[in-house]
Protein backbone atom coordinates (compact mmCIF):
# COMPACT_ATOMS: atom_id res chain seq x y z
CA UNK A 1 0.00 0.00 0.00
CA UNK A 2 1.10 3.55 -0.61
CA UNK A 3 2.38 5.57 2.35
CA UNK A 4 -0.66 7.82 2.28
CA UNK A 5 -3.17 5.00 2.56
CA UNK A 6 -1.05 3.24 5.17
CA UNK A 7 -0.91 6.35 7.35
CA UNK A 8 -4.62 6.98 6.95
CA UNK A 9 -5.44 3.41 7.87
CA UNK A 10 -3.42 3.73 11.06
CA UNK A 11 -4.87 7.12 11.97
CA UNK A 12 -8.39 5.98 11.30
CA UNK A 13 -7.91 3.35 13.97
CA UNK A 14 -6.09 5.60 16.41
CA UNK A 15 -6.10 9.33 15.79
CA UNK A 16 -3.84 9.94 18.80
CA UNK A 17 -0.81 8.62 16.92
CA UNK A 18 1.80 11.31 16.54
CA UNK A 19 4.17 11.56 13.59
CA UNK A 20 6.90 9.97 15.71
CA UNK A 21 4.65 7.01 16.59
CA UNK A 22 3.73 6.48 12.96
CA UNK A 23 7.33 6.82 11.85
CA UNK A 24 8.52 4.33 14.44
CA UNK A 25 5.94 1.72 13.49
CA UNK A 26 6.63 2.08 9.79
CA UNK A 27 10.40 2.34 10.05
CA UNK A 28 10.41 5.81 8.42
CA UNK A 29 11.87 9.21 9.20
CA UNK A 30 9.64 11.49 11.26
CA UNK A 31 10.09 14.30 8.72
CA UNK A 32 8.77 12.15 5.90
CA UNK A 33 5.68 11.19 7.86
CA UNK A 34 5.10 14.71 9.15
CA UNK A 35 5.25 16.24 5.70
CA UNK A 36 2.87 13.65 4.25
CA UNK A 37 0.43 14.31 7.10
CA UNK A 38 0.77 18.06 6.58
CA UNK A 39 0.01 17.68 2.90
CA UNK A 40 -3.05 15.60 3.65
CA UNK A 41 -4.39 18.20 6.06
CA UNK A 42 -3.82 20.92 3.45
CA UNK A 43 -5.57 18.88 0.79
CA UNK A 44 -8.36 18.09 3.22
CA UNK A 45 -7.80 14.40 2.90
CA UNK A 46 -7.64 14.51 6.67
CA UNK A 47 -10.73 16.47 7.66
CA UNK A 48 -10.70 16.16 11.43
CA UNK A 49 -10.01 13.89 14.37
CA UNK A 50 -12.47 11.99 16.47
CA UNK A 51 -12.80 10.33 19.82
CA UNK A 52 -15.07 7.33 19.93
CA UNK A 53 -17.30 7.65 22.98
CA UNK A 54 -19.85 5.35 24.49
CA UNK A 55 -22.21 8.07 25.69
CA UNK A 56 -24.47 5.44 27.21
CA UNK A 57 -21.99 5.23 30.05
CA UNK A 58 -22.16 8.94 30.79
CA UNK A 59 -24.74 11.29 32.31
CA UNK A 60 -25.38 13.06 29.05
CA UNK A 61 -28.84 12.32 27.72
CA UNK A 62 -29.57 12.75 24.05
CA UNK A 63 -31.20 10.98 21.17
CA UNK A 64 -29.94 10.10 17.73
CA UNK A 65 -32.21 9.65 14.75
CA UNK A 66 -31.57 8.31 11.29
CA UNK A 67 -33.86 10.00 8.80
CA UNK A 68 -34.47 8.61 5.35
CA UNK A 69 -35.19 11.54 3.09
CA UNK A 70 -36.67 11.48 -0.39
CA UNK A 71 -36.05 14.62 -2.38
CA UNK A 72 -36.84 15.94 -5.85
CA UNK A 73 -33.81 17.55 -7.35
CA UNK A 74 -34.61 20.35 -9.70
CA UNK A 75 -32.77 22.51 -12.14
CA UNK A 76 -30.29 24.58 -10.17
CA UNK A 77 -30.99 22.54 -7.07
CA UNK A 78 -29.30 19.15 -7.44
CA UNK A 79 -28.60 16.65 -4.69
CA UNK A 80 -25.45 18.43 -3.58
CA UNK A 81 -27.21 21.69 -2.97
CA UNK A 82 -30.08 20.07 -1.14
CA UNK A 83 -27.61 18.12 0.96
CA UNK A 84 -25.78 21.33 1.79
CA UNK A 85 -28.94 23.01 3.00
CA UNK A 86 -29.42 20.07 5.31
CA UNK A 87 -25.90 19.46 6.54
CA UNK A 88 -25.35 23.07 7.55
CA UNK A 89 -27.70 22.63 10.50
CA UNK A 90 -25.64 22.01 13.63
CA UNK A 91 -27.84 19.20 14.85
CA UNK A 92 -27.14 17.24 11.68
CA UNK A 93 -24.18 14.95 12.32
CA UNK A 94 -23.97 13.17 9.00
CA UNK A 95 -25.54 13.25 5.55
CA UNK A 96 -25.05 10.61 2.88
CA UNK A 97 -26.42 10.37 -0.65
CA UNK A 98 -27.85 6.90 -1.05
CA UNK A 99 -28.71 4.45 -3.78
CA UNK A 100 -32.00 2.61 -3.49
CA UNK A 101 -35.40 3.50 -2.10
CA UNK A 102 -34.60 6.94 -0.73
CA UNK A 103 -32.06 9.63 -1.48
CA UNK A 104 -30.40 11.00 1.64
CA UNK A 105 -29.55 9.52 4.99
CA UNK A 106 -29.55 12.29 7.58
CA UNK A 107 -28.28 11.56 11.07
CA UNK A 108 -29.50 14.01 13.64
CA UNK A 109 -28.82 14.44 17.33
CA UNK A 110 -30.98 16.25 19.85
CA UNK A 111 -31.43 16.48 23.60
CA UNK A 112 -34.76 14.67 23.35
CA UNK A 113 -37.32 13.38 20.89
CA UNK A 114 -39.09 16.73 20.85
CA UNK A 115 -35.97 18.44 19.57
CA UNK A 116 -35.78 16.07 16.69
CA UNK A 117 -39.49 16.26 15.95
CA UNK A 118 -39.10 20.03 15.80
CA UNK A 119 -36.12 19.80 13.48
CA UNK A 120 -38.06 17.58 11.10
CA UNK A 121 -41.35 19.43 11.13
CA UNK A 122 -39.88 22.90 11.13
CA UNK A 123 -36.64 22.64 9.21
CA UNK A 124 -36.38 19.52 7.12
CA UNK A 125 -39.88 18.62 5.92
CA UNK A 126 -40.85 22.15 4.79
CA UNK A 127 -37.89 22.41 2.41
CA UNK A 128 -39.22 22.61 -1.13
CA UNK A 129 -37.14 19.78 -2.46
CA UNK A 130 -37.99 17.37 0.34
CA UNK A 131 -40.75 14.99 -0.65
CA UNK A 132 -40.89 12.77 2.40
CA UNK A 133 -39.06 11.71 5.52
CA UNK A 134 -39.00 8.50 7.56
CA UNK A 135 -37.45 8.80 10.98
CA UNK A 136 -35.81 5.99 12.95
CA UNK A 137 -34.52 6.50 16.46
CA UNK A 138 -31.36 4.77 17.62
CA UNK A 139 -32.05 2.65 20.70
CA UNK A 140 -28.59 1.28 21.38
CA UNK A 141 -25.22 1.36 19.72
CA UNK A 142 -23.36 -1.93 19.57
CA UNK A 143 -20.53 -1.10 17.24
CA UNK A 144 -19.35 2.21 15.88
CA UNK A 145 -16.50 3.08 13.54
CA UNK A 146 -15.39 -0.55 13.48
CA UNK A 147 -15.20 -0.85 17.24
CA UNK A 148 -17.51 -2.92 19.39
CA UNK A 149 -18.53 -0.56 22.16
CA UNK A 150 -20.97 -2.52 24.25
CA UNK A 151 -18.69 -5.38 25.20
CA UNK A 152 -16.69 -5.69 28.38
CA UNK A 153 -12.97 -5.73 27.82
CA UNK A 154 -11.89 -9.31 28.09
CA UNK A 155 -8.90 -10.15 30.26
CA UNK A 156 -5.84 -11.62 28.55
CA UNK A 157 -6.40 -15.31 29.07
CA UNK A 158 -3.10 -16.45 27.66
CA UNK A 159 -0.56 -18.14 29.88
CA UNK A 160 2.00 -15.58 30.96
CA UNK A 161 4.85 -17.65 29.54
CA UNK A 162 4.50 -20.22 26.77
CA UNK A 163 6.81 -21.84 24.21
Amino acid at each position, binding site marked *: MELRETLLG*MLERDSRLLPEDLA*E*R*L*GLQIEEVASELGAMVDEQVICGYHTLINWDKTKREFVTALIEVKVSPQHGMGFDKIARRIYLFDEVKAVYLMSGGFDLTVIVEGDNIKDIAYFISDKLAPMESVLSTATHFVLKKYKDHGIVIERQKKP*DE*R*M*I*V*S*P
Partner: protein
Amino acid sequence: MSQRIKELPFSGIRKFFDVAKEIKGAISLGVGEPDFDTPWNIRAEAIYQLENGSTAYSSNAGLLELRQEISRYMRERFHLEYSPLSQIVVTVGASEGIDIAMRAIIEPGDEVLLVEPCFVSYKPCVLMAGGVPVIAAPKAENGFRLRPEDLEGKIGPKTKAILISYPSNPTGAIMDLHDLELLAEIFIKHDLCVISDEIYAELTYGQEHVSIASLPGMAERTIVLNGFSKAYAMTGWRLGYACGPASVMEAMLKIHQYVLMCAPTTSQHAGIEALKNGAASVRAMKSEYDGRRRVIVSGLREMGLDCFEPKGAFYAFPSIKSTGLSSDDFCMRLLKQERVAAVPGNAFGECGEGFIRCSYASSIDSLKEALKRIGRFLESL
Protein backbone atom coordinates in the same frame (compact mmCIF):
# COMPACT_ATOMS: atom_id res chain seq x y z
CA MET B 1 8.37 -44.55 35.08
CA SER B 2 10.35 -45.36 31.99
CA GLN B 3 14.01 -44.41 32.11
CA ARG B 4 13.70 -42.50 28.85
CA ILE B 5 10.98 -40.25 30.19
CA LYS B 6 12.61 -39.93 33.58
CA GLU B 7 15.70 -38.56 31.92
CA LEU B 8 13.72 -36.09 29.85
CA PRO B 9 13.96 -32.67 31.52
CA PHE B 10 10.98 -30.37 31.91
CA SER B 11 11.20 -27.45 29.55
CA GLY B 12 12.99 -24.36 30.85
CA ILE B 13 9.90 -22.42 29.91
CA ARG B 14 7.81 -24.34 32.37
CA LYS B 15 10.26 -23.67 35.18
CA PHE B 16 10.06 -19.98 34.45
CA PHE B 17 6.30 -20.10 34.08
CA ASP B 18 5.92 -21.46 37.61
CA VAL B 19 7.66 -18.40 39.00
CA ALA B 20 6.08 -15.86 36.65
CA LYS B 21 2.50 -16.90 37.25
CA GLU B 22 2.84 -15.92 40.90
CA ILE B 23 3.85 -12.34 40.11
CA LYS B 24 0.84 -10.03 40.18
CA GLY B 25 0.45 -7.36 37.53
CA ALA B 26 3.34 -8.61 35.43
CA ILE B 27 3.58 -7.55 31.80
CA SER B 28 4.43 -10.50 29.67
CA LEU B 29 6.81 -10.59 26.76
CA GLY B 30 6.89 -14.32 27.30
CA VAL B 31 3.87 -15.38 25.33
CA GLY B 32 4.36 -17.63 22.32
CA GLU B 33 0.92 -17.10 20.83
CA PRO B 34 -1.03 -14.31 19.14
CA ASP B 35 -2.92 -11.81 21.27
CA PHE B 36 -5.72 -11.62 18.69
CA ASP B 37 -8.90 -13.61 18.93
CA THR B 38 -9.52 -16.00 16.05
CA PRO B 39 -11.24 -13.98 13.29
CA TRP B 40 -15.01 -14.09 13.68
CA ASN B 41 -15.80 -15.67 10.32
CA ILE B 42 -13.72 -18.67 11.38
CA ARG B 43 -15.36 -18.91 14.80
CA ALA B 44 -18.79 -18.44 13.25
CA GLU B 45 -18.18 -21.32 10.86
CA ALA B 46 -17.23 -23.58 13.76
CA ILE B 47 -20.36 -22.56 15.67
CA TYR B 48 -22.47 -23.23 12.61
CA GLN B 49 -20.94 -26.67 12.20
CA LEU B 50 -21.62 -27.45 15.84
CA GLU B 51 -25.22 -26.28 15.51
CA ASN B 52 -25.48 -28.43 12.45
CA GLY B 53 -24.35 -31.45 14.43
CA SER B 54 -21.13 -32.09 12.51
CA THR B 55 -19.60 -33.71 15.52
CA ALA B 56 -18.36 -37.08 14.31
CA TYR B 57 -14.81 -38.30 13.68
CA SER B 58 -13.36 -37.29 10.34
CA SER B 59 -11.29 -39.59 8.19
CA ASN B 60 -7.88 -40.19 9.76
CA ALA B 61 -6.05 -37.91 7.38
CA GLY B 62 -8.59 -35.15 7.93
CA LEU B 63 -11.67 -33.87 6.09
CA LEU B 64 -11.08 -34.18 2.37
CA GLU B 65 -12.27 -30.62 1.78
CA LEU B 66 -9.71 -29.36 4.26
CA ARG B 67 -6.93 -31.34 2.59
CA GLN B 68 -8.02 -29.92 -0.75
CA GLU B 69 -7.87 -26.41 0.66
CA ILE B 70 -4.43 -27.09 2.15
CA SER B 71 -3.28 -28.42 -1.20
CA ARG B 72 -4.52 -25.30 -2.97
CA TYR B 73 -3.02 -23.03 -0.34
CA MET B 74 0.39 -24.70 -0.49
CA ARG B 75 0.39 -24.40 -4.28
CA GLU B 76 -0.73 -20.79 -4.44
CA ARG B 77 1.25 -19.55 -1.51
CA PHE B 78 4.51 -21.50 -1.66
CA HIS B 79 4.59 -23.23 -5.06
CA LEU B 80 4.34 -26.66 -3.48
CA GLU B 81 2.36 -29.53 -5.02
CA TYR B 82 0.75 -32.03 -2.65
CA SER B 83 -1.99 -34.48 -3.47
CA PRO B 84 -4.90 -34.13 -1.05
CA LEU B 85 -5.35 -37.90 -1.25
CA SER B 86 -1.90 -39.14 -0.34
CA GLN B 87 0.43 -36.33 0.70
CA ILE B 88 -1.36 -34.39 3.41
CA VAL B 89 -2.17 -35.38 7.00
CA VAL B 90 -4.19 -33.03 9.18
CA THR B 91 -2.66 -33.07 12.66
CA VAL B 92 -3.40 -31.86 16.16
CA GLY B 93 -1.24 -28.78 15.75
CA ALA B 94 2.23 -28.69 14.24
CA SER B 95 3.18 -30.12 17.64
CA GLU B 96 1.78 -33.48 16.67
CA GLY B 97 3.41 -33.18 13.27
CA ILE B 98 6.82 -32.85 14.91
CA ASP B 99 6.25 -35.95 17.01
CA ILE B 100 4.88 -38.24 14.34
CA ALA B 101 7.44 -37.11 11.77
CA MET B 102 10.21 -38.13 14.17
CA ARG B 103 8.61 -41.42 15.01
CA ALA B 104 7.96 -42.18 11.37
CA ILE B 105 11.54 -41.75 10.20
CA ILE B 106 13.88 -42.48 13.12
CA GLU B 107 15.52 -45.87 13.77
CA PRO B 108 16.98 -46.22 17.27
CA GLY B 109 20.35 -44.51 17.31
CA ASP B 110 19.74 -42.37 14.24
CA GLU B 111 21.12 -38.89 14.54
CA VAL B 112 18.88 -35.91 13.92
CA LEU B 113 20.34 -32.46 13.45
CA LEU B 114 18.61 -29.69 15.35
CA VAL B 115 19.31 -26.03 14.82
CA GLU B 116 19.39 -24.29 18.18
CA PRO B 117 18.12 -22.07 19.64
CA CYS B 118 14.84 -23.69 18.66
CA PHE B 119 11.33 -24.56 19.69
CA VAL B 120 11.34 -26.52 22.94
CA SER B 121 9.74 -29.73 21.74
CA TYR B 122 12.18 -30.71 18.99
CA LYS B 123 14.79 -32.33 21.18
CA PRO B 124 12.35 -34.25 23.39
CA CYS B 125 10.52 -35.52 20.31
CA VAL B 126 13.80 -36.83 18.85
CA LEU B 127 14.69 -38.45 22.15
CA MET B 128 11.27 -40.00 22.63
CA ALA B 129 11.53 -41.49 19.15
CA GLY B 130 14.83 -43.10 20.12
CA GLY B 131 16.96 -40.73 18.07
CA VAL B 132 20.12 -38.88 19.02
CA PRO B 133 19.91 -35.10 18.73
CA VAL B 134 22.99 -33.37 17.29
CA ILE B 135 23.04 -29.63 17.71
CA ALA B 136 24.05 -27.07 15.11
CA ALA B 137 24.20 -23.49 16.32
CA PRO B 138 23.99 -20.68 13.79
CA LYS B 139 25.67 -17.48 14.83
CA ALA B 140 24.02 -14.34 16.04
CA GLU B 141 26.27 -12.29 13.76
CA ASN B 142 24.78 -14.13 10.78
CA GLY B 143 21.34 -13.18 12.00
CA PHE B 144 20.83 -16.75 13.24
CA ARG B 145 20.60 -18.02 9.68
CA LEU B 146 21.89 -21.53 9.29
CA ARG B 147 25.04 -21.49 7.15
CA PRO B 148 26.80 -24.48 5.61
CA GLU B 149 29.78 -23.98 7.93
CA ASP B 150 27.49 -24.41 10.95
CA LEU B 151 26.99 -28.00 9.81
CA GLU B 152 30.65 -28.84 9.41
CA GLY B 153 31.60 -31.96 11.33
CA LYS B 154 28.00 -32.53 12.34
CA ILE B 155 26.92 -34.81 9.52
CA GLY B 156 28.05 -38.44 9.72
CA PRO B 157 26.94 -41.89 8.60
CA LYS B 158 24.26 -41.99 11.28
CA THR B 159 22.71 -38.64 10.39
CA LYS B 160 19.19 -39.34 9.19
CA ALA B 161 17.50 -36.00 9.19
CA ILE B 162 17.62 -32.32 9.99
CA LEU B 163 14.84 -30.28 11.51
CA ILE B 164 14.81 -26.64 10.49
CA SER B 165 12.31 -23.94 11.33
CA TYR B 166 12.19 -20.56 9.64
CA PRO B 167 10.84 -18.05 10.46
CA SER B 168 12.38 -19.02 13.75
CA ASN B 169 11.01 -19.22 17.23
CA PRO B 170 12.83 -17.84 19.28
CA THR B 171 15.15 -15.72 17.11
CA GLY B 172 12.80 -14.31 14.47
CA ALA B 173 15.35 -15.20 11.79
CA ILE B 174 14.22 -16.06 8.28
CA MET B 175 16.06 -17.67 5.36
CA ASP B 176 15.88 -16.37 1.83
CA LEU B 177 16.15 -18.41 -1.33
CA HIS B 178 19.91 -18.10 -1.55
CA ASP B 179 20.43 -19.19 2.07
CA LEU B 180 18.26 -22.23 1.42
CA GLU B 181 20.02 -23.14 -1.82
CA LEU B 182 23.32 -23.45 -0.01
CA LEU B 183 21.74 -25.82 2.49
CA ALA B 184 19.73 -27.83 -0.02
CA GLU B 185 22.93 -28.77 -1.78
CA ILE B 186 24.31 -30.25 1.45
CA PHE B 187 21.09 -32.02 2.36
CA ILE B 188 20.94 -33.66 -1.06
CA LYS B 189 24.61 -34.60 -1.01
CA HIS B 190 24.22 -36.37 2.33
CA ASP B 191 20.80 -37.73 1.47
CA LEU B 192 19.17 -36.21 4.54
CA CYS B 193 15.50 -36.12 5.27
CA VAL B 194 14.42 -32.56 6.09
CA ILE B 195 11.65 -31.70 8.49
CA SER B 196 10.75 -28.08 7.92
CA ASP B 197 8.54 -26.52 10.57
CA GLU B 198 6.98 -23.56 8.77
CA ILE B 199 4.37 -22.63 11.33
CA TYR B 200 5.35 -18.94 11.09
CA ALA B 201 5.45 -18.87 7.27
CA GLU B 202 2.73 -16.21 7.03
CA LEU B 203 4.54 -13.91 9.42
CA THR B 204 7.49 -12.50 7.52
CA TYR B 205 8.18 -8.80 7.20
CA GLY B 206 9.50 -7.17 4.08
CA GLN B 207 9.95 -10.39 2.15
CA GLU B 208 7.93 -13.50 1.48
CA HIS B 209 8.60 -16.88 3.02
CA VAL B 210 10.34 -19.45 0.84
CA SER B 211 9.81 -23.12 1.66
CA ILE B 212 12.88 -25.30 1.32
CA ALA B 213 10.61 -27.95 -0.19
CA SER B 214 10.15 -25.74 -3.24
CA LEU B 215 13.83 -26.04 -4.22
CA PRO B 216 14.83 -28.58 -6.90
CA GLY B 217 15.32 -32.06 -5.49
CA MET B 218 13.92 -31.13 -2.09
CA ALA B 219 10.20 -31.97 -2.19
CA GLU B 220 10.91 -35.69 -2.22
CA ARG B 221 13.00 -35.50 0.95
CA THR B 222 11.13 -32.85 2.90
CA ILE B 223 8.28 -33.03 5.37
CA VAL B 224 6.68 -29.61 5.67
CA LEU B 225 4.88 -28.93 8.94
CA ASN B 226 2.48 -26.07 9.20
CA GLY B 227 -0.68 -25.12 11.05
CA PHE B 228 -3.28 -22.56 11.92
CA SER B 229 -2.06 -21.47 15.36
CA LYS B 230 0.07 -18.48 14.50
CA ALA B 231 -1.22 -17.18 11.17
CA TYR B 232 -4.91 -17.30 12.06
CA ALA B 233 -4.56 -16.87 15.83
CA MET B 234 -5.96 -20.37 16.40
CA THR B 235 -3.63 -21.83 19.02
CA GLY B 236 -6.40 -23.31 21.16
CA TRP B 237 -8.05 -25.09 18.23
CA ARG B 238 -5.16 -27.54 17.95
CA LEU B 239 -4.99 -27.79 14.21
CA GLY B 240 -2.03 -28.26 11.92
CA TYR B 241 -0.90 -30.34 8.98
CA ALA B 242 2.02 -32.23 7.54
CA CYS B 243 2.81 -32.49 3.84
CA GLY B 244 5.42 -34.63 2.14
CA PRO B 245 6.20 -37.68 0.04
CA ALA B 246 3.35 -40.21 0.02
CA SER B 247 5.41 -42.99 1.62
CA VAL B 248 6.37 -40.88 4.65
CA MET B 249 2.88 -39.48 4.95
CA GLU B 250 1.52 -43.01 4.99
CA ALA B 251 3.86 -43.87 7.85
CA MET B 252 2.88 -40.73 9.76
CA LEU B 253 -0.78 -41.43 9.12
CA LYS B 254 -0.34 -44.87 10.64
CA ILE B 255 0.87 -43.36 13.92
CA HIS B 256 -1.69 -40.58 13.80
CA GLN B 257 -4.49 -43.08 13.23
CA TYR B 258 -3.60 -45.19 16.24
CA VAL B 259 -2.75 -42.37 18.60
CA LEU B 260 -5.25 -39.65 17.75
CA MET B 261 -7.70 -41.04 15.22
CA CYS B 262 -8.20 -37.59 13.74
CA ALA B 263 -7.82 -33.89 14.52
CA PRO B 264 -10.88 -32.26 16.14
CA THR B 265 -13.61 -32.10 13.51
CA THR B 266 -14.95 -28.69 14.56
CA SER B 267 -11.47 -27.25 14.25
CA GLN B 268 -11.11 -28.80 10.83
CA HIS B 269 -14.26 -27.05 9.63
CA ALA B 270 -12.87 -23.82 11.04
CA GLY B 271 -9.63 -24.52 9.17
CA ILE B 272 -11.49 -24.75 5.86
CA GLU B 273 -13.00 -21.33 6.46
CA ALA B 274 -9.61 -19.94 7.48
CA LEU B 275 -7.97 -21.08 4.26
CA LYS B 276 -10.87 -19.98 2.09
CA ASN B 277 -11.59 -16.58 3.61
CA GLY B 278 -8.89 -15.78 6.12
CA ALA B 279 -6.24 -14.03 4.04
CA ALA B 280 -7.39 -10.48 4.79
CA SER B 281 -7.35 -11.14 8.54
CA VAL B 282 -3.86 -12.59 8.28
CA ARG B 283 -2.70 -9.46 6.45
CA ALA B 284 -4.23 -7.18 9.07
CA MET B 285 -2.64 -9.06 11.98
CA LYS B 286 0.69 -9.22 10.22
CA SER B 287 0.73 -5.50 9.61
CA GLU B 288 0.00 -4.93 13.30
CA TYR B 289 2.87 -7.23 14.30
CA ASP B 290 5.16 -5.41 11.91
CA GLY B 291 4.56 -2.08 13.66
CA ARG B 292 5.16 -3.64 17.05
CA ARG B 293 8.30 -5.32 15.79
CA ARG B 294 9.80 -1.97 14.90
CA VAL B 295 8.79 -0.48 18.22
CA ILE B 296 10.34 -3.26 20.28
CA VAL B 297 13.54 -3.57 18.27
CA SER B 298 14.24 0.14 18.28
CA GLY B 299 13.28 0.34 21.96
CA LEU B 300 15.70 -2.44 22.90
CA ARG B 301 18.46 -0.93 20.81
CA GLU B 302 17.96 2.50 22.29
CA MET B 303 18.67 1.15 25.72
CA GLY B 304 21.91 -0.29 24.47
CA LEU B 305 20.99 -3.93 23.94
CA ASP B 306 22.35 -5.62 20.88
CA CYS B 307 19.34 -6.79 18.89
CA PHE B 308 19.53 -8.08 15.35
CA GLU B 309 16.51 -7.33 13.19
CA PRO B 310 14.04 -10.20 13.33
CA LYS B 311 12.24 -10.56 10.01
CA GLY B 312 9.73 -13.21 10.93
CA ALA B 313 7.46 -14.69 13.61
CA PHE B 314 6.71 -12.37 16.56
CA TYR B 315 9.87 -12.46 18.62
CA ALA B 316 12.87 -10.25 19.19
CA PHE B 317 15.96 -11.98 20.55
CA PRO B 318 18.27 -9.36 22.03
CA SER B 319 21.64 -10.18 23.54
CA ILE B 320 21.98 -9.35 27.21
CA LYS B 321 25.66 -10.29 27.37
CA SER B 322 26.66 -6.67 27.96
CA THR B 323 24.96 -6.82 31.37
CA GLY B 324 27.22 -9.63 32.55
CA LEU B 325 24.16 -11.53 33.77
CA SER B 326 23.17 -15.01 32.69
CA SER B 327 19.88 -15.27 30.81
CA ASP B 328 18.25 -16.94 33.79
CA ASP B 329 19.45 -14.29 36.24
CA PHE B 330 18.49 -11.48 33.92
CA CYS B 331 14.96 -12.78 33.40
CA MET B 332 14.42 -13.69 37.03
CA ARG B 333 15.60 -10.31 38.27
CA LEU B 334 13.68 -8.44 35.60
CA LEU B 335 10.58 -10.32 36.63
CA LYS B 336 10.96 -9.70 40.33
CA GLN B 337 12.25 -6.15 40.14
CA GLU B 338 10.14 -4.74 37.32
CA ARG B 339 7.46 -7.38 36.79
CA VAL B 340 8.25 -8.01 33.16
CA ALA B 341 8.34 -11.61 31.97
CA ALA B 342 10.69 -12.50 29.11
CA VAL B 343 11.99 -15.98 28.40
CA PRO B 344 15.68 -16.81 29.02
CA GLY B 345 17.30 -17.69 25.70
CA ASN B 346 18.81 -20.87 27.06
CA ALA B 347 15.30 -22.34 27.35
CA PHE B 348 15.68 -22.88 23.59
CA GLY B 349 19.08 -24.54 23.74
CA GLU B 350 22.42 -23.87 25.39
CA CYS B 351 23.54 -21.52 22.65
CA GLY B 352 20.62 -19.27 23.54
CA GLU B 353 22.52 -18.35 26.69
CA GLY B 354 23.20 -14.62 26.73
CA PHE B 355 19.94 -13.82 24.96
CA ILE B 356 16.33 -13.33 25.99
CA ARG B 357 13.21 -13.90 23.92
CA CYS B 358 10.80 -10.98 23.86
CA SER B 359 7.49 -11.74 22.23
CA TYR B 360 5.73 -8.79 20.63
CA ALA B 361 2.37 -10.50 20.47
CA SER B 362 1.00 -7.81 22.79
CA SER B 363 -0.50 -4.37 22.35
CA ILE B 364 1.85 -1.48 21.62
CA ASP B 365 0.85 0.12 24.91
CA SER B 366 2.01 -2.86 26.92
CA LEU B 367 5.16 -3.20 24.81
CA LYS B 368 6.02 0.40 25.54
CA GLU B 369 5.40 -0.05 29.23
CA ALA B 370 7.55 -3.19 29.20
CA LEU B 371 10.34 -1.33 27.41
CA LYS B 372 10.20 1.44 29.98
CA ARG B 373 10.55 -1.08 32.75
CA ILE B 374 13.41 -2.93 31.06
CA GLY B 375 15.20 0.40 30.62
CA ARG B 376 14.78 1.14 34.32
CA PHE B 377 16.02 -2.35 35.15
CA LEU B 378 19.15 -1.93 33.02
CA GLU B 379 19.93 1.36 34.72
CA SER B 380 19.66 -0.29 38.13
CA LEU B 381 22.37 -2.82 37.29
